[in-house]
């Protein structure tokens, strides 16, 4: 099992939501933490919470907690942020990179302006790519056997109404994580991909204001950022590539076949609703050629959801 003790964890989008909770968790486990995000104000507030999380530790004085303000959707800023984070550790690239920064602007496809699609891809995918690309180069150069973690989403495993600007970006992250899992083995860098379900964060609350009702109906209820952070931590420690936040996500990850075509119900409205309902129940078999976390467990889940 992997231990984060004395490791330098770098978290993009670490001033709020999942990023912040994960940062606090890492601090409480004795890791050095650097968080990056745009707003200096939010970063400073988050820093206080991170320090507080580690305060009861005996080695508190030796732990380094830092913040970097940067626009991670821009290449130069992402490099600068990584430089600043490394500079607090004698130029050594962070051991663990959590690419968490992301936005979601749900809406009806034909109503949303194109620039929202561009903005979302720019931060969610390119933001992660810029940091990962540079970090991987440095890890290889410096011989750091590090970890890269992409925060994707269950929307990166499936897509549904309302998420046409978001799901492709999270799918792209999955594609990147899969290729890198393969490729970065060469440098002893391990890669993980987190398929989080809906998390109750400030961003989620913003999303809810513009989300179409039908999308809300499909999505269901969120989990807390704390639980989401714990699930991610567990997955990383176990060395899982594919990490999910809850059993539904797990079933979605491991399970049997797509939707049964609801041919019994010709009427369009009901058909759509049922198709969506079925998709939620008949979860995913998204392993493809990715490594199964535990072949027996997955097989069991697969069987259960297929029958269910």
């Amino acid at each position: 099992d992997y231990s984060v003790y004395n490791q330098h964890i770098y978290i993009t989008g670490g001033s709020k939501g999942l990023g912040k909770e994960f940062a606090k968790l890492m601090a409480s486990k004795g890791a050095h933490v650097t968080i990056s995000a745009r707003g200096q104000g939010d970063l400073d507030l988050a820093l206080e919470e991170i320090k507080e999380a580690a305060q009861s530790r005996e080695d508190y004085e030796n732990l380094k907690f830092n913040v970097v303000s940067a626009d991670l959707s821009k290449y130069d800023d992402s490099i600068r942020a990584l430089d600043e984070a490394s500079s607090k550790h004698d130029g050594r690239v962070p051991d663990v990179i959590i690419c968490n920064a992301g936005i979601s602007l749900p809406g009806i496809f034909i109503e949303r302006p194109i620039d929202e699609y561009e903005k979302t891809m720019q931060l969610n995918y390119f933001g992660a790519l810029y940091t990962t690309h540079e970090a991987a180069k440095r890890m290889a150069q410096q011989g750091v056997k590090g970890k890269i973690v992409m925060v994707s989403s269950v929307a990166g495993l499936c897509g549904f109404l309302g998420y046409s600007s978001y799901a492709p970006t999270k799918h792209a992250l999955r594609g990147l994580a899969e290729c890198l899992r393969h490729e970065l083995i060469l440098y002893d860098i391990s890669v993980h991909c987190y398929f989080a379900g809906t998390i109750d964060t400030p961003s989620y609350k913003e999303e809810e204001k513009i989300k179409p009702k039908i999308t809300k109906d499909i999505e269901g209820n969120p989990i807390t950022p704390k639980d989401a952070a714990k699930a991610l931590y567990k997955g990383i420690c176990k060395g899982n590539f594919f990490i999910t936040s809850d059993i539904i996500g797990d079933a979605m990850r491991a399970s049997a076949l797509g939707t049964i075509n609801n041919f019994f119900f010709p009427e369009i409205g009901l058909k759509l609703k049922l198709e969506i309902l079925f998709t939620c129940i008949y979860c995913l078999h998204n392993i493809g050629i990715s490594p199964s976390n535990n072949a027996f467990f997955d097989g069991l889940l697969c069987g259960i959801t297929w029958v269910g």
Partner: protein
Amino acid sequence: MIFILLLGNSLFTEILKRDKFCPKGKHVYITGGSSGLGKEIAKLMASKGAHAARSREDHENLKFTAIFADLTDYDESIRALNEASSKHNGRVPEIIFCCAGFSLPRIFIEQPIKEFEKTMQLNYFGTLYTVHEAVKRMAQQNVKGKIVLVSSLLGLCGFIGYSSYAPTKHAIKGLVECLRNELILYGISVHGYFAGTIDTPGYHEEMKIKPKVTHDIEGDSKVTSEHAAKSLYNGLCKGNVFITTDIVGDAIRASSLGISQANNAFYDAILCFIAWVG
């Protein structure tokens, strides 16, 4: 018992599948239609009696048009769609194939960031710009059209060398899934084509720079553009949402389905099991 249910369901599905594909007399718009898969699709559609906006040939009442545009640019994409529609009294094309795309396989840490950006810009945004505008017009003009997005098996999995390409094709898959759900509301059907390796001019360009290890994993088996176009056409005729070229592609597809629509639940279940064990 479950097997029987599944088998029964599959049979019903085959019989009742909507989307009997008939391109005759329809206006087909193909991006990336000047070579490779796009060109073969255009030829195939023309042979089935469709009007194809792609190449300059006049044949009786069928209209064939070539439009030059940089599809990575939003305004150019709209202009191209306008030009295509203008030949049909402003009516939006009924069938849109988004084939424009390319691949630059390289070792991740050696690949310049610009290449990641260029690849995403054409493969994903090039598709998005056209589809977004076309769907708006289909909804406005009440055209119950068809959108076909060309992804790849690398949109379902990924391996070394394809880190700039696989994400773009995954993004297309994500788009297919969301739009499949959403565009039912307007009577527009959506399909994704998960092609394996196709022998095209683009492929030959790729081979010049492809890392050896990537080539070793991929293997040498590839299909002709003609065969790929036919597979796509067959998949569309069957009304499949996720279409592949061959059995290996099908196995990868079936085991990566997620909550996507299974083409045939029984067949997919078997493939899935085989893929899981294998």
